[in-house]
């Protein structure tokens, strides 16, 4: 440690200690969450309800008893996958808005193979999930290649590819894979080939949650313990320097988006094999878009993504209890999440609230995003 830094710390030790390290990393998200809940309280008041009662019901619905915890875990599971899908790409300096479509590709893969390989019983589970990883990888590589070879910006291509993927998945679900009967959707995977529930008390929460945790650990190991991960992060931090050091920008771009795709695809597979058993039309929406919020809230770190997903999952789980116990509509949860997302990258707002020094220490996510979409 240099003399200068020590001197600076001596001058302002407490503030520095609070703001560095983990606390610094948590500052942005915590401020966003607190502000969002404060705004939410005003909204609840405006509708003539008691915000304290609403939030107590929300908390009970998210963590109050084992079945509430189970719902939180169940909701958090796909968001861990889609959050990781955003985070990996983000580490390479890329914005993956395609989690929604990638998840649908994985889900329809699982619905198709889960039904046709159902006779394998539990053995089918790893096979099907591996297939979801592969189809997600291939689908995710498309925007990567469009960027690497044609310079098409990944934000727009991933948005557009979402709709291509969703339509394609719906076509498959309603035509070749369609189930008998009036409800549009695929056939249902045999119970033996489904991901089992964790325990009776936790309701529908299933071992897919642990698959998600494993995926988070795998992403951590990939990014911080392998050469490939080092390259991906180097490309994200400074494409010029990475290129000068002999790293291939195109390859790392494609891989980062493809790995993101494989994670969201796996998430889709877990949704089908764990939660739903098939792919209905319409299928569960917004998991991919919420993954963006989860990743940003978790500062694009796997551990943060898990925490962010638990928060989002808990909010959605608690919202139902809140609507039941008070008169507050459950959509309040979506509003709260939107406000969190709105605030979490607002660097100047944080500067406004806590001052410039704090911002300088906590703005990693903000500054990294400041690249244009023009090129």
């Amino acid at each position, binding site marked *: 440690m240099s003399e200068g830094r020590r001197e600076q710390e001596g001058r302002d030790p407490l503030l520095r200690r609070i703001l560095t390290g983990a606390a610094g990393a948590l500052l942005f998200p915590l401020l966003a969450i607190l502000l969002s809940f404060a705004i939410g309280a005003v*909204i609840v008041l405006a*509708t003539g309800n008691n915000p304290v009662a609403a939030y107590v019901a929300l908390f009970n619905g998210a963590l109050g008893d084992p079945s509430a915890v189970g719902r939180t875990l169940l909701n958090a599971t796909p968001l861990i996958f889609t959050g990781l899908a955003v985070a990996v790409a983000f580490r390479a300096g890329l*914005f993956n*808005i395609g989690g929604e479509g990638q998840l649908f590709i994985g889900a329809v893969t699982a619905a198709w193979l889960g039904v046709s390989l159902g006779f394998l019983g539990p053995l089918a589970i790893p096979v099907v999930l591996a297939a979801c990883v592969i189809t997600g990888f291939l689908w995710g590589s498309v925007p990567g290649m*469009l960027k690497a070879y*044609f*310079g*098409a*910006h990944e*934000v*727009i*291509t991933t*948005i*557009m*590819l979402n*709709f*291509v993927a969703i*339509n*394609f998945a*719906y*076509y498959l679900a*309603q*035509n070749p894979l369609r189930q008998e009967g009036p409800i549009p959707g695929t056939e249902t995977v045999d119970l033996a080939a489904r991901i089992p529930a964790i325990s009776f008390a936790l309701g529908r929460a299933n071992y897919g949650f642990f698959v998600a945790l494993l995926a988070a650990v795998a992403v951590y190991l990939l990014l911080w313990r392998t050469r490939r991960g080092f390259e991906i992060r180097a490309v994200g931090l400074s494409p010029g320097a990475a290129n000068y050091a002999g790293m291939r920008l195109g390859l790392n771009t494609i891989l980062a988006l493809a790995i993101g795709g494989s994670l969201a695809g796996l998430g889709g597979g877990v949704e089908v094999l764990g939660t739903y058993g098939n792919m209905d039309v319409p299928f569960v929406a*917004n998991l991919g*878009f*919420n993954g*963006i*919020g989860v990743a*940003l809230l978790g500062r694009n770190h796997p551990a943060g993504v898990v925490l962010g997903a638990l928060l989002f999952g808990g909010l959605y789980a608690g919202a139902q209890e809140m609507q039941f116990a008070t008169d507050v*509509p459950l*959509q*309040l*949860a*979506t*509003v709260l*999440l*939107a*406000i969190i*997302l*709105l*605030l*979490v*990258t*607002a*660097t*100047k*707002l944080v500067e*406004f609230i806590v001052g410039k020094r704090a911002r300088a220490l906590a703005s990693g996510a*903000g500054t990294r*995003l*400041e*690249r*244009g*979409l*023009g*090129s």
Partner: protein
Amino acid sequence: MEDFFGLLGPILQSTVRNATPLVFAALGGLFSERSGVVNIGLEGLMLISAFAGVVGANLSGSAFIGLGTAVAAGLLFALIHALMTVTFEADQIISGTAINLLALGGTGFLMVAIFGSGGTSPRIEGFESVAIPVLSSIPLLGPALFDQSILVYLMYVLVPVVFFVVFHTPFGLRLRGTGEAPEAVDTAGVNVARMRYYGVGLSGVLAAFGGAYLSMGLLSAFTENMTAGRGFIALAALIFGRWNPIGAAGAALLFGFAQAVTYSVNEQAIPIEFIEMIPYVLTIIALAGLGGRAIAPAAIGKPYRKE
């Protein structure tokens, strides 16, 4: 052949109807993006306006007051986007995503709070079709172009007006300059932040016309998530139309035509899902540069910090 002409009339009419909300939102997106602010929140801007229009019309009994509340809501949400991205330097993509989520959650929340239940709102007095004398009796094109709601006629007027404003007025020059080279226009004395507020604000107003047309022109009620991706198709039209009002309107008409054909001719020749992919696939092709690459305003996506 007679059968074909019998179908062509309704197809053209529904082409214009499908295209109208897309044109409005794409023109709105154009102002925002030309000023240097990406607006993937068009979907949310349309949705909240569609809802606010119905609430206004429901409370007042007047479609025009509904249009006013729709525009107010679109403007308000757009200004939130501007506040976050221009003033607080939040990421534009994230803020746009949040606007979409906020509109989805907000309309769902307010449906229950105002109308007592989710799903579909009560019916309201919308904008009826107004046939323009003489013009509407032109065979084939007459009913398609000139027997429409007043909002459609407004759209016809807006396309050339926006073209003129963006390319032939000092305001348009400053707006485009702000999106291409903010440092340069700043040096020339233009307030970059203010131009971006104008651009994003106008995107809210125009997207609001699109949203109002959905809930008060095409239908006479609000249903949850009724925009159903139209904001993103509008974004696609904007990019496919090369950030040019005429191009964007042309792209919107093309996308609207593709939809109209499927809905009226479809005999399972091509599955509808594949028709719905057309706007998105074309946009990807345009971005990848086949047939002349679509190039965004140079400074788009970057917050501008005055030195």
